[in-house]
């Protein structure tokens, strides 16, 4: 079987060409997932497709009596958001990111922005998390420097966003991961808000994060189950390596 067939991306609405694609798959602090759902809600993005695979858990979700896939794609003419309501099994990461990169290439994405977290131990002492960025090409890094983003200079990155950067690079697509300092195993709406504010430098959405911060505690309560599922697959995802020092030096 072809790699691309393991994961199927099914379009179900109008998919506009040349958007900026935001990926918010479950990872540390659920930063990307919380940010992605808030963007979809605030921008009133329409559901334009879903992602299915035999590698995902055999789970569907019911919203307002309607049956839905837990991995869905939303968007309008300017932006596309990919999100998931279930944890992604580590074995599905490669096929999923490959299929996603292939699809974003087809729709001619201008830029791919995975949003995620950067776990730190003293998160409880930080009121405003810093956001770091990793670009997947010279051009992407130049853009980050132009926009005065804080670069992650050295270190390992693990999880869906890391492989997404690589798969986009292979297809000559510029991608930038935004990593907000976060709690590793607690849902972190504050980090999601910081990431959305940084996103504004790339995609002018004009989103006010006030409501996200106000509803933070409610979101934390509702996100407990997904956070727990996600934390369970973190060791296999090699999340621990992110705290390690790479051996290469210059």
């Amino acid at each position, binding site marked *: 079987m072809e790699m691309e067939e393991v994961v199927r991306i099914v379009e179900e609405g109008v998919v506009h060409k040349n958007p900026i694609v935001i990926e918010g798959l479950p990872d540390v602090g659920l930063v990307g997932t919380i940010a992605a759902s808030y963007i979809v809600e605030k921008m009133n993005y329409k559901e334009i497709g879903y992602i299915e695979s035999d590698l995902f858990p055999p789970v569907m979700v019911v919203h307002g009596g309607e049956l839905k896939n837990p991995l869905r794609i939303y968007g309008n003419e300017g932006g596309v958001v990919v999100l998931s309501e279930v944890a992604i099994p580590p074995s599905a990461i490669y096929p999923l990111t490959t299929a996603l990169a292939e699809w974003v290439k087809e729709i001619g994405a201008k830029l791919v922005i995975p949003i995620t977290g950067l776990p730190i131990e003293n998160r409880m002492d930080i009121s405003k998390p810093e956001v770091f960025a990793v670009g997947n090409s010279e051009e992407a890094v130049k853009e980050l420097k132009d926009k005065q983003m804080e670069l992650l200079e050295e270190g390992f990155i693990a999880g869906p966003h890391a492989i997404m950067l690589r798969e986009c690079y292979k297809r000559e697509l510029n991608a930038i991961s935004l990593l907000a300092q976060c709690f590793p195993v607690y849902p972190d709406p504050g980090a999601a808000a910081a990431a959305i504010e940084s996103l504004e430098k790339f995609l002018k959405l004009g989103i006010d994060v006030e409501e996200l911060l106000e509803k933070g505690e409610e979101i934390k*309560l509702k996100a407990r189950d997904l956070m727990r599922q996600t934390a369970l697959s973190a060791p296999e995802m090699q999340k621990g390596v992110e705290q390690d020092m790479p051996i290469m030096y210059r």
Partner: protein
Amino acid sequence: MGMERRIIRTTWGYDGNLEPLYEVEDKEDEISVTFDLPRVRKENVEINTTENTVEVIARMSDAVCWERWGSTQKRITFQALRKQIRLPEPIDPEKASASFKNGILRINLPKGRRKVFIPIE
């Protein structure tokens, strides 16, 4: 293993309690446990420890009511976050301390067993 092997493992109960997320870290001389306690004020947190367990009961400022979700639980209200954890090694309950900041409760539990210095011959 009993609990983990159950088919249905919920993070909420019909007794009005939600299970909070928590993290246990085994440090050299102490065990550090943190709990994520959204909607909770410091004065509404109760912590009880024994040598082998730590229990947290945290009353939320407003009850949480979730509706139209699941089959049996059409409408269910939660008043508190509650969890008892079995510790990886015995601690000294008298020396335990706790702090609460930005919705995160941190409990430091010094280990009960004293270290014995072994000289190298």
